[in-house]
């Protein structure tokens, strides 16, 4: 941990693990589970934006879903303001929605096509038991906050553009005034020009409402724009977590280095020599022993594949003042 931590974290995740049993319950015992998330620990500080990046299938979305408690972890704990929320059920779990909310990736499938914008935004409050006239007032206020007008209230989602729909999704998430918002690829499905608008809106709302964002994305340009800190995931594990500038300027983990080198630059003269990673991501059903990355690791190869890499799982360790990486040799 860095020395600057003064506040207790809003979210503390310890050794979070999720193994999926796939197939029907009859065949579940025949195939090994999918190890979607393996032993992830991190903290989310009040008011910051922590991004989680990684390739598709690395478990970043699953991690977000577990913190959100839409999925129940196989092992590990999630704490919200020091309270263990890992095992909450039923009524208590529903009460948690007040504190943690989510913005979904696809603005086209995340809104019920048979509900008006007004009904969709009002639903969290209706569930909470808020009645008229406060209900309409809050919905109108929220519409204004996300840059929609009163006229949008009666519309159905199919009459809105992608950006407008995402604004509705944001309004729905924020109307409960949560502390933490999990943004799952919140702008990935949008056009680039609209992405910028939505990102700016999210940043403004963060300022006004004091939100803490867990921003899940595969788009490094977006991550660089919005984050305070960035975590890199590979095959279900957190391989590096660091302050944004630190990670983008001097990534420590070989995988992070490969990832950062793949970011396109804005001018040909800035182009660096890139050696793309070889091979494919191994199956999360049968991850390699030791460091999950050793099968493709250029560092391990240049060092002559030391035994440590495929026997011992590297733990996250401090590399610099605000940088931790899970590599034996970084």
């Amino acid at each position, binding site marked *: 941990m860095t020395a600057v931590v003064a506040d207790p974290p809003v979210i503390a995740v310890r050794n979070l693990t999720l193994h999926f049993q796939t197939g029907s*319950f009859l065949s579940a015992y025949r195939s090994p589970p999918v190890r979607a998330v393996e032993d992830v620990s991190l903290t989310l500080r009040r008011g910051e934006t922590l991004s989680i990046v990684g390739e598709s299938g690395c478990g970043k979305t699953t991690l977000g879903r577990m913190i*959100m408690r839409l999925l129940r972890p196989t092992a590990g704990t999630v704490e919200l303001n020091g309270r263990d929320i890992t095992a909450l059920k039923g009524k208590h779990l529903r*009460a948690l929605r007040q504190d943690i*909310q989510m913005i979904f990736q696809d603005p086209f499938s*995340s809104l*019920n096509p048979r509900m008006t914008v007004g009904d969709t935004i009002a639903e969290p409050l209706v569930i909470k038991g808020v009645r008229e006239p406060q209900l309409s007032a809050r919905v109108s206020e929220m519409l204004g906050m996300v840059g929609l007008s009163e006229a949008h209230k009666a519309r159905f989602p199919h009459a809105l553009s992608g950006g407008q729909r995402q604004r509705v999704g944001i309004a729905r998430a924020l109307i409960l005034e949560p502390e933490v918002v999990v943004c799952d690829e919140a702008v990935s499905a949008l056009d680039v020009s609209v992405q910028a608008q939505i990102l700016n809106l999210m940043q403004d709302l963060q300022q006004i409402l004091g939100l803490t964002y867990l921003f899940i994305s595969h788009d490094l340009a977006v991550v660089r724009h919005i984050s305070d800190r960035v975590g890199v995931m590979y095959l279900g594990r957190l391989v590096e977590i660091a302050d944004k500038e630190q990670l983008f300027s001097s990534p420590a983990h070989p995988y992070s280095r490969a990832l950062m080198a793949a970011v396109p630059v804005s001018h040909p003269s800035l182009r660096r020599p890139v050696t793309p990673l070889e091979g494919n991501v191994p199956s999360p059903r049968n991850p390699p022993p030791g460091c999950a990355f050793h099968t493709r690791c250029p560092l391990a190869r240049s060092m002559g594949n030391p035994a440590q890499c495929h026997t011992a799982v590297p733990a996250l360790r401090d590399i610099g003042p605000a940088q931790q990486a899970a590599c034996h040799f970084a």
Partner: protein
Amino acid sequence: MRILKQLLRHKSGLIGSVITLLIVLPIALAPLIYSYDDVINMNLAQVLRPPSLEHPLGTDELGRDLMGRLLWGGRVSLVLSSVSVAIGLVAGVTIGVCAGYFDGPLSWLTMRCVDAMMTFPRMLVALFVITVMGQGEVSLAIAVGISTIPIFARLSRGSTLALRGIAYVEAAGAIGASHSRILLRHILPNILSPLLVQATLAFASAVILAAGLSFLGMGPAPPTPEWGAMTAEARSYLVTAPHIVLAPAVAVLLLVLGFNLLGDALRDIMDPRLTQERH
């Protein structure tokens, strides 16, 4: 309204609507034309009369006006079939939606039971229910309804499974909606169109099944006019007065045809691949 417009533009939809209206309208208006006593009371002086101005379809073997019996019998058929489709729809959708939403060992077991039910011919299932419950309108409606459950259960389970992974259903969970709220507000309204199509088709087959069971004597007791029972009672006069056998049979045929055409048209119209709702 949009659906109605498209229905009338669709060829088989138009034909189906016209046939259905031509049958359902007179049936609905029957009490204005014939009193129920007219179609119940025998008149042995006027047995097996050919069609005339007084009796448009002639009279049956007990001297009752055939047109009147046909129209009143239609009411019995329509009510029986509607009630049985409603029973099948409500029970089947409840089973299917729950089994699709709470996917687990229990729902697996439920669906295997539904599958087992499907392996029996519907007539057999219905006969079994009537044997257990006794003869009469009520048990006939329940019997036909129960035999309709598997279709609706399978259809609604499939649709629910498809919806369960969609983001807005997950989003409903994320804002703290209870299971019943998710099922009623987010899943049910979005699986309604395939169910509506299926209900139309199920109605047609319920008419046939109810008439078939009545023909076998499992329906309402004798003086009550019912198309299947009428066909059965008159079948010994097939050679001497074929029209009294054919009239109820043709009525069943037309009603079923009308609803089948209507159902097919609705399926075409509501198929998202054919008429995509543009975003």
